[in-house]
């Protein structure tokens, strides 16, 4: 029905809601869970899963989800607010006049870009 709605091919009958409500009213009201027979209790699993096991399992699961959350975090980059060519002339001037700058030799790049 969802697919049909998405395709706008769904023809919802006007009395559908009232029929659903009537069926819900006919359902018996359950106020307490049905008692489980003593023989059916989960004692048979106790030798394998004691309270410590459950704690460890919960911790592992929590660590897994925290790790998954951290791994899937987007990389937080420093704000890069300056456009690429905005500071080219300053960088070039720095390389030209700084007392020690090996980048001196790559000036051709900036000159090419500036022309």
């Amino acid at each position, binding site marked *: 029905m969802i697919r049909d709605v998405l395709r706008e091919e769904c023809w919802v009958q006007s009395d559908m809601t009232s029929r659903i409500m009537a069926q819900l009213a006919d359902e018996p009201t359950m106020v307490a869970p049905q008692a489980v027979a003593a023989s059916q209790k989960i004692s048979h699993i106790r030798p394998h899963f004691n309270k410590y096991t459950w704690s460890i399992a919960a911790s592992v699961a929590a660590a897994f989800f925290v790790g998954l959350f951290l791994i899937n975090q987007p990389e937080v980059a420093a704000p890069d607010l300056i456009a690429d060519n905005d*500071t080219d002339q300053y960088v070039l001037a720095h390389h030209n*006049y700084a007392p020690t700058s090996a980048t001196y030799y790559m000036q051709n790049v900036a000159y090419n870009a500036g022309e």
Partner: protein
Amino acid sequence: MSLKFVFPGHFLRVLLLAIISQSAVAEEDLWATMQKTASAARELNYQGLFVYQNGAVIRSVQITHIYEGGREFTRNVVLDGRPREVFSEGDDIVIFNAKNDKVVIEKRRGQNLFPAMLPTQLYPLKQNYKLKFVGQERVAGRLAQVLDMIPNDNLRYQYRIWSDTEYGLLLKMSMLDMQGRTLEQIGFNQVAMLHTKDLDWFQPKIDATKPYVMDDTTDLTHTEDNLVVPNLPAGYKKVDQIQLKVPGRTAPVRQLIFSDGLASVSLFVEPMIKGMQPRVGKKSMGSTNVYAHVLNGYQLVVVGEVPAQTVEQIAQQVTFKK
């Protein structure tokens, strides 16, 4: 009679003192090597080919250097990209730069070019870096001592230098980030000592058919003004202040240069004129970091081959005296 084994505190103190003094001597020896390296690049006669690498950019440069009569003569020919020749005689540097239909001549002064990257006065470096002997390696067919210059703080990068064991010439130098990754590297591929003092080679050979013109943007004025940076990052000092014309800017731009002896940072101050778009923010390009903001109607841009926090710290400290 029982023998009593005594391990006196005095012995421990002497042992400790010996270890400390041994390490101090070793550190002094390394600084002596550095001093020899700083001098060798200026006083030896050599010719070679070195490669500069910064990220994806690689440039090969041919160098000839002669020390004659107390003067240095160097010719660097950039072999990749656009033709370019850099001549230096003492502190004066002249660059012949082929641009379209002409050769533009630019003038510079007082720059330390490879392999003379280390300052002759090492005192500022001793204040900001510690030396560590790494080992020996061959570079450009020559045996080199490898030393690490480890910064005392995170306001500058680490450097690794390869110093020729025989002559002390700087054969290679790398700039490393905080994680030890190479940001920038420059080193000889081949080098040989020269036994001639002939200076016939000391003339430009770049596009002799084209007219040579002086570049007016290199017309510098040394200035002093009301701008101050009261609390510079530890170890940095102002080494120069100039006023220059920057292409595309109508008003002259002031440039203050700071250095710790090796790392250098420029602070540019440009008056904001009508219609000028303010630049605010930071940018990182390999080893170069940029920080820009606006203060008192001036555009401030700090650029340097230093960590981002150093340029930011300088930019935040700028004040104008009344």
